[in-house]
């Protein structure tokens, strides 16, 4: 994303900046912005389609894509040093640990042990596994 350096980069650039010059200067950011808006629109549309069990998969997939776009381009993670990338990843890794081990408890509860409210709701909706 190397934007061409603007000619008169001094503080007193000409007052009325032409739109085309402005677009050319921020070409990179505008492309990224457009990508984000498209992804947002996509996830919005997909939410209304009858995807059934695939809903969480698609909505989370697109959200992760948007997050990566913002992190890599807007937050310049692409050119940061390894330590900073490690710091960025550390939060997510240990969040993953919290998710997986907590889910391990809830998903592996045998039929007799789960919450009473859960047993009640599962009794009412037989087609739910």
């Amino acid at each position: 994303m190397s934007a061409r350096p603007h000619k008169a980069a001094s503080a007193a650039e000409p007052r009325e900046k032409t739109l085309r010059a402005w677009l050319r200067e921020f070409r990179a950011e505008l492309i990224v912005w457009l990508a984000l808006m498209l992804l947002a629109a996509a996830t919005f549309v997909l939410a209304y389609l009858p995807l059934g069990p695939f809903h969480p998969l698609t909505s989370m997939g697109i959200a992760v894509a948007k997050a990566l776009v913002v992190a890599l381009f807007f937050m310049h993670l692409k050119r940061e040093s390894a330590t900073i990338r490690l710091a960025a990843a550390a939060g997510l890794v240990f969040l993953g640990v919290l998710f997986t081990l907590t889910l391990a408890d809830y998903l592996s509860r045998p039929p007799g042990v789960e919450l009473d409210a859960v047993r009640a709701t599962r009794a009412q909706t037989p087609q739910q596994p």
Partner: protein
Amino acid sequence: MSDIPLRDVRLETDPHVGFETSYLGEGFSLWSWLTTTDHKRIAILYLISTTIFFFLGGAAAVLIRLELFTPQGDLLTAEAYNRTFTLHGVIMVWFFLVPVIPTVLGNFLLPLMIGAKDVAFPRLNLFSWYLNIIGGGLAVAAMLAGGVDTGWTFYTPYSTIYSNGHVSLTAIGVFVAGFSTIATGINMIVTVHTLRTNGMRWFRLPLFVWAIYATSLIMLLSTPVLAMVLVLIIAERLFGLGVFNPDLGGDPILFQHLFWFYSHPAVYIMILPGMGVVTEVITCFARRRVFGYQFMVYALLGIAVIGFFVWGHHMFTSGQSMYASLAFSMLSFLVAVPSAIKVFNWTATLYRGQITWEASMIYALGFVGLFTMGGLTGLFLASVPVDIHVHDTYFVVAHFHYIMVGGMVSAFFAGLHFWWPKITGRLYPEFVAQIAAGMMFAGFNLTFFPQFILGNLGMPRRYYAYPPEFQVWHVLSSAGAVILAFAYLLPMAYLLWSLIWGKRAGDNPWDASGLEWQTRSPPPKHNFVEAPFVSEDVYDYHPENAPRGSGADDRRYDDRDIAGEKADAAESGRRHRAAETPPATAQARRASKTREPSDGEGR
């Protein structure tokens, strides 16, 4: 005790080097202390505040032990007892055990040990102290206003629906103190990453710096989850936003998952700095390099990482699924392995050393013994069937007190005594200190070993009245507590005494290796008159009558390596001196000149 051979301590002979030119000398007004950004002064502020919290929590502990002297509760009512043990838990965990070593010894020594002028974000460091004080103030205010009776674990639904104590005020206090810990963590990690002096490679860092680094990792990755759990408690109590409310289908076990995801790594936040201090003290007073330096570093990082996988062993009896319990039990056994490695390495460090018994060495070896017992009883609690029997009994109370009081508090006292000459420029009275250390070790064992037996007999935790057959063990424990209380008061007395009447310590009274001992004590404001240069490995000790050879622990750099480092150090020294204009007086430069390693003639 007096015939034990002691190192004859080299005193500071030069009268006018010392107080005036040190970090303590440049202004003693209240304002200069309250707005200081000097990491050494902030360490002193933390030392004062954590000591006050320590004696506040300790007073609650004495009350509890006196109450349990008799089977039927007669000193306190049930309500008052519940609020007392909650006060003891909250104050000790969040305002003494978690902050004390990283903020007192860590703040003071880390920049010195890596040759930096200050921590990376000095103002954030001061802000962290203020957060700690505000949080502590709120928690103490909640206690004075009537206290909390939920225990320091705040288990729902009791804490959110049924408790009528000041839960929200305490939760806000702890929430604020949590951000103080996060601020310290950020400061320490960035300092170690960016401010190491030239030659201070990662594997030349002293193990105390590694311990603080590993602790900061845990602080940063676990405290936010505690902050959110406290927000959820406050949201449910004040605004009725019941996330854990069983009537709505909420699950109190989910609260326990989120709470223990913080609270188990928190116990590693408490013990890792202690391990770092103990390594420094044992290597100095055994005059030997640490045994297996790289294994010790990987053990520290191993504990920090695996410590996040094991929290489920607090919930074996809570209705957590049996398969998850087995998984957590397995991971809990794994996390015990690095601790075992460290204990064996400390013991091996003593092999073929020149061991002397200064007070800090007594505390350090006491730490190794008591931490071993604490860690091994952790194995009992990690195996599911045994934990089902002894969970929530005094066996657990004894286990975590062995690690926290026997381990961490002994390590803190070891560090306090070891670096006292560096912090204050004064020497404490050695003989009295040895008596206090021995008394603390004896008092501790008398207090908490009977509680293992109580736990095995089934005495539950947090009972203020108990069946009469447990009384004999409680009487022993309460007697031990009195000795322990006295053993804690003694150091406070003679350390304060030494501030005025103590002998003046030189730069390096213990003849220890490490950058902090190469500058003056108490150190000047910017720590070093000229940037120190590191060329040898860390812990450059070797026993008195041992030849310097090619042995495993005397690894020498070959000449090409040393020449290369001297070249780039000279170049960076020139660049550094150009950027720095300290008013270096003649004596300051002479006193802090890098001391030549004394070949073979050691004291």
